[in-house]
């Protein structure tokens, strides 16, 4: 079985990492030990290259890096929010279309003359509102419903973009 480690590896690596030449005894060992010889060659080549490259490396300053990260995080948040708004808008449109189709379908099933059916619904609502118990609440209720309908899109928009 091939030997994959030597007990003196750590000494060789420490000498290389510290940038000092190994002592005679260690050098003599490395000459005879294939594992330590490979280690010394590879580790010193990489160590030299690492230190030279560290001197040459040009990285953006930490301030620039921070600014880029923040800007990217904001862009991502905006993208996610706009995607959600689009989704809600599409869902609302689809829901409305379904509702309209369902009402039209229901109307055509209930009666062939859908205008007559609308008249009937309209008058039944008027009758309902004219009832003495309801009449006093009819106007505030109407305005309340109208307000809700008008404000609903804004409420959805702010709820979604808040994040």
């Amino acid at each position, binding site marked *: 079985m091939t030997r*994959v*480690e030597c007990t003196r590896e750590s000494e060789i*690596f420490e000498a*290389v*990492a510290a940038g000092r030449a190994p002592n005679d005894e260690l050098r003599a060992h490395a000459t005879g030990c294939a*594992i330590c*010889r*490979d*280690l010394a*060659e*590879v*580790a010193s*080549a*990489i*160590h*030299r*290259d*690492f230190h*030279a*490259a*560290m001197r*040459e*490396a040009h*990285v*953006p300053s*930490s*301030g620039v*890096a*921070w600014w*880029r*990260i923040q800007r*990217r*995080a904001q862009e991502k948040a905006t993208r996610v929010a706009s995607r959600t708004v689009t989704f809600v808008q599409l869902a609302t449109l689809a829901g409305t279309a379904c509702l309209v189709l369902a009402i039209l379908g229901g109307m055509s099933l209930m009666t062939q003359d859908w205008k007559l059916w609308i008249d009937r619904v309209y008058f039944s609502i008027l009758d309902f509102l004219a009832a003495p118990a309801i009449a006093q609440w009819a106007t505030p209720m109407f305005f309340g419903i109208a307000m809700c309908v008008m404000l609903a899109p804004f409420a959805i928009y702010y709820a979604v973009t808040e994040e």
Partner: protein
Amino acid sequence: MRTDTTMRETTLSELESLATAEHEATTLLMDEDEFRAFYDRTARALWVYLSRITGDRQLADDLLQETYYRFYRAGTAHESEKHRRNSLYCIATNVARDAGRRARHRYTLPLPETDDPHEPHANDRTGAQVEGRTDLARAMAQLDPRQREMLWLAYAQGASHVEIAETLGMKAASIKTLLFRARRTMARLLRNS
């Protein structure tokens, strides 16, 4: 009376632990000063790592930015500086592998930036150094990505087998053998060049 005191102590300690947990949850993302200090300590070495495992300086610039972005967004709590650094290198390695897969990136030969061997003013010593580094780059180019990562972490960063295993997502027990093979291949390539 004693019962009242005990109850009050329990309640206060519970409140304290809740407050600590809440504080920890809100402070997982590093603040600017902490991030900048960590970046200043690690960025250059990380850039060198990325440029050596990809063999491409421009790509290393992009990957450096991507690595710090992912690291920041991950907002993971780290028990020590060493653990935090390992986590950063783990992200960097994954980012480099993703980039390699996406672009089918081929390892190019990263020549030293400032020391051009063909430059007429370069003296002998600089020429020899550059030659040595070019040999290393050429040898690295012939290794597979995992071997490059492993050798660099072990001999440039001085990472232990356990740290290499954590960074590369491998078993610690297999690192010794794999590192031995990578080193042997690299030594042979260096001798041949």
